[in-house]
């Protein structure tokens, strides 16, 4: 019986998240459209509201092309790895008090583990397609993941030290309900590092080198089509949501808000995640792309020292108070 309930919960969460993903793409197109003095999708449904569904149907029924020279098993597996790891990380996210599928003690580490595994999907996609552009994209992605996983992890160490836990629910609880007690203020350096690393982890502008359209055509995605392409796409957007959720939980006080919303406790959590997503989209509309070596330089020469400094300062703070 309990298993059945959990399965139902999983199904509900998946459905909601996938719907969210679909509409995140819609909002991205709409927001960027309006930022770029155009309308965005307008034709399917009222103001293009049904566009994501049309896109989904289209990609589902498109022919699934596998290049002749590709390494077939890995080529087929790569998008699945990407999507599954991203979906798995949803399990530990606390949307509100008690609104979490698996309240495990190492929630934060689990999220890291999953996001580092997701890079396998990209790397294998790049390698298995047996095409030059995808391979370059895969290599870029690999270097990027290795370099940015470290500052990302280090930037959250400060949060772990302050809250004394890796459990996401406890991290939120430790921050308290007041808006001034969230970790954004004591961990401002950590947040800065986290935010940049977050953009890099999700391959978003200005760090979208693995799929830089004007350089590598479409990077590791070049040879994919139809549903498998859509799976990568979904994985990317779920990744964005997961990263936004980590940011919300660790720095913005999770589901806590100025006042409680009756019947719908995750309201503030979702609002903050939307805020992050809007930032993602805004940045995409504004910034150019980094070059490969500049990206590495930023990661290793700026972010990692800053994150280490943040840990040191937090330690001092802990010792003297």
């Amino acid at each position: 019986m309990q298993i059945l309930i959990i399965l139902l919960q999983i199904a509900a969460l998946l459905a909601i998240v996938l719907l969210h993903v679909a509409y995140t793409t819609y909002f991205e197109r709409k927001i960027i459209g309006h930022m770029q003095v155009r309308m965005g999708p307008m034709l399917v449904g009222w103001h293009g509201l049904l566009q994501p569904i049309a896109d989904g149907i289209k990609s589902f029924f498109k022919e699934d092309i596998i290049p002749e020279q590709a390494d077939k098993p890995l080529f087929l597996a790569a998008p699945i790895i990407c999507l599954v790891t991203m979906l798995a990380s949803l399990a530990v996210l606390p949307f509100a008090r008690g609104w979490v599928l698996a309240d495990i003690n190492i929630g934060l580490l689990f999220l890291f583990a999953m996001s580092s595994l997701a890079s396998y999907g990209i790397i294998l996609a790049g390698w298995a397609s047996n095409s030059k552009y995808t391979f370059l994209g895969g290599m870029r992605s690999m270097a990027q993941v290795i370099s940015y996983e470290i500052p990302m992890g280090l930037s959250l160490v400060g949060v772990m030290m302050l809250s004394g836990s890796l459990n996401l629910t406890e991290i939120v609880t430790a921050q308290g309900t007041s808006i001034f007690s969230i970790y954004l203020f004591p961990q401002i350096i950590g947040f800065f590092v986290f935010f940049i690393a977050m953009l890099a982890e999700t391959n978003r502008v200005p760090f979208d080198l693995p799929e830089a359209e004007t350089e590598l055509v479409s990077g590791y995605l070049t040879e994919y089509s139809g549903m498998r392409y859509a799976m990568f796409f979904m994985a990317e957007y779920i990744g964005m949501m997961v990263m936004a959720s980590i940011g919300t939980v660790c720095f913005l006080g999770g589901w806590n808000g100025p006042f409680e919303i009756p019947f719908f406790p995750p309201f503030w959590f979702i609002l903050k995640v939307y805020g992050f997503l809007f930032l993602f989209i805004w940045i995409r509309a504004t910034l150019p792309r980094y070059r490969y070596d500049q990206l590495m330089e930023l990661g290793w020469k700026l972010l990692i020292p800053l994150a280490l400094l943040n840990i040191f300062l937090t330690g001092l703070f802990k010792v003297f108070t």
Partner: protein
Amino acid sequence: MLNQLAFLYCASVIIGTALLAVRFKNPVYSVLSVLVLFFHMAGLYLLLNAEFLAAIQIIVYAGAVLVLYLFVLFLVSLREEVKIERFIKSHRLATAVSIGLGLSLLMIIPSFKLGAKGEYPVERITELTHTKAMGFELYSTYLLPFEVAGLILLIAVIGGLVLARKEEEIK
């Protein structure tokens, strides 16, 4: 019962993928089977309530070390077939040595004793959480070995840097 089944599954997959990793001719497939192996290792840790270790196993080994291996594999251009001489020329001698090694491994088994031992039995760990328990132990009892290990790793990092630099200068 469920635990034992899970252990059996993990253990058999570990052995299977370990063999596959050696047998695969395509190095990328070998690395990937090692990835599956690491996964099941993490599963074993979870069965032992060592959740921190499980997570670290995946983050460090699967997420970083293996990715680096893949990186190197992709970068190294295999233009010619790699030819390696057999370490032991005689087939019989090789068999004998491996059987001997296998036997000595089996002989260790009786020294394992089941049941709770030491300061941190399972109940305590569940209460404290594994991360905390490990943190306490590492930073109090085993502080010196921990620091020494850190220093050794630092030396390795610096060594690697020095080696990489030298090669560049020669170019």
